[in-house]
């Protein structure tokens, strides 16, 4: 096939350098060589723990005394499903998902459509919208706690104008979840703006031009062209939105300050907060593992249901 092959055949194994050259040219050898590090690391730090966690979830096992572990079948799973704290966390996560995901997707779509046709400063705006997403969740939560503080918080004062109470939102049982929703939407909108901008580029501009000839106005163009043609992008935005929002953890952790996780009074306890406090505040490795697999199942289920809905729409 080529010069190297001929040369190799003649002096096979003659010099170490050539032997190496032959190995370096073997698809099989180089292929395995290049995936070997990730296979080793994955086995140690992903698949082995995954298997262990699955086994833990059927055991009564505690971090403080792991040798006293015993098999208890489905008791952990049953215990979780009978725990009112779990259902409170489930309700919070469900509310967060059902409100924050559509809200952030809609705002992102509107901003992206506005930004798409802009000629100057497009990059500047995009950067501004994207910044919250790359900023540490702990930093963002810290800033928002001051913005939503009683009396002095800018946002509290703003919303007070519209008749909302003058309280520290993060410490109020009624306002803490809305606070978490605002925080989430603010953080993720910019990410979805960038994704929608990518999607808008895939719509050929002559579709808009010919619809203009047919007398369609901007509003009709938006509903009849932009929205339907962005359906694959919207699927991506909703799916990844659901996955992110169901994983919310840092924000409730930070706003609880030195109080117990999910403060005030469990108002910001999400399913991941529930998981974490079972596992690491109460040291219940087995019970926590079962909670982890329940979260995993919920995420898969939410994605599948969502997929079903977008499909039926088409």
């Amino acid at each position: 096939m080529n010069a190297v092959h001929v040369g190799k055949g003649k002096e096979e194994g003659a010099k170490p350098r050539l032997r190496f050259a032959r190995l370096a040219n073997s698809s099989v050898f180089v292929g395995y060589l290049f995936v070997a590090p990730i296979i080793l690391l994955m086995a140690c730090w992903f698949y082995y723990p995954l298997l262990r966690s699955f086994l833990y979830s059927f055991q009564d096992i505690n971090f403080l005394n792991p040798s006293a572990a015993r098999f208890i079948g489905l008791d952990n799973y049953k215990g979780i499903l009978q725990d009112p704290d779990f259902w409170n966390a489930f309700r919070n996560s469900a509310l967060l998902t059902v409100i924050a995901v559509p809200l952030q997707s809609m705002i992102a779509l509107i901003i992206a459509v506005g930004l798409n046709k802009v000629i100057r400063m497009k990059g500047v705006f995009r950067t501004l919208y994207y910044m919250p997403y790359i900023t540490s969740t702990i930093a963002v939560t810290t800033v928002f706690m001051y913005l939503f503080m009683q009396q002095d918080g800018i946002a509290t004062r703003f919303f007070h104008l519209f008749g909302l109470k003058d309280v520290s939102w993060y410490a109020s049982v009624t306002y803490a979840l809305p606070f978490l929703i605002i925080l989430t939407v603010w953080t993720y909108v910019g990410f979805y703006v960038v994704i929608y901008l990518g999607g808008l580029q895939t719509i050929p501009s002559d579709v808009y031009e010919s619809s203009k000839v047919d007398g369609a106005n901007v509003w009709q163009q938006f509903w009849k062209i932009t929205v339907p043609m962005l359906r694959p992008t919207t699927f991506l935005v909703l799916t990844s939105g659901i996955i992110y929002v169901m994983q919310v953890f840092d924000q409730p952790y930070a706003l609880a300050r030195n109080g117990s996780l999910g403060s005030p009074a469990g108002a910001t306890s999400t399913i991941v907060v529930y998981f974490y406090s079972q596992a690491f505040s109460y040291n219940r490795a087995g019970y926590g593992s079962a909670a982890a697999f329940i979260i995993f199942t919920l995420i898969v289920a939410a994605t599948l249901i969502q997929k079903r809905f977008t499909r039926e729409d088409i």
Partner: protein
Amino acid sequence: MDNRKSQWLRYTLLTICSLVFVVPFGYALYTSLLSKADIDKLVALNRLTWTNYSDVLLHSDIKIWYKNSIIVTLGILIGNLFINTTAAYSLARLRYPGKALIFFLIIGMMMVPYQVTIIPIYSMIVKLGWLNSYEGLILPFLFQGFLVFLMRQFFITIPRELEEAAEVDGVTKIGIFFRIILPLSRGAIGTQIIFSYTGTWNSFVWPVTLVNDSRMYVLTVGLNTLKNRYFEWPNLTMTGVILLTIPIIIVFLIFQRHLVQGIATTGLKG
């Protein structure tokens, strides 16, 4: 509505929207420059002061947290670049038995939330004596399924002819990867850098779980304790916020065009 008018309308709306995104950053920066007496007041520019920065830098452990964050982020970044990129090239271009299974195992990791592995990993780290150590904060995170996927998506778009021409010239498979493919992949590597860097720099749940000695805190965990301790002094906590955020914004501004490209190639083609 003529074109000019519609452009103006767009700019006005976009500017109002961006205010919502800018105000919290502006608040943090402004408050970090206030003296204790001026907290929650609107003051003239000449009353702003840098003393909070010198106070925080001198009287808290923030310098150590910075060092820890830099070591951990660089360690993971270098590992990620090396391990994910070689794996992705192998999956995109080389032929060998079992490749489909390996691909499935790598991509499969993307669907599994971290809660499912963090408990056993915590026990493993404890058993290895790696609690409060760089090993514990770096080694489990050297690879990332998503970044392998991202690089693979990029590699399959490179025309095969380039590699075939190099092969004719007698370049080995390893040589092709280092001398032909890598120089062509600067954009994709830029994307990988920004994802890996921002993800590690901002990560919180792992370092807060695997470290309990304040001298081994990374910045995010440090800021959280700083906030809890000095919550009554927003000028100090906002200084912490700015110090944590500045490095990420600098790197983001340098690599941001790669990020946009990266989202476009993985998100939409994949």
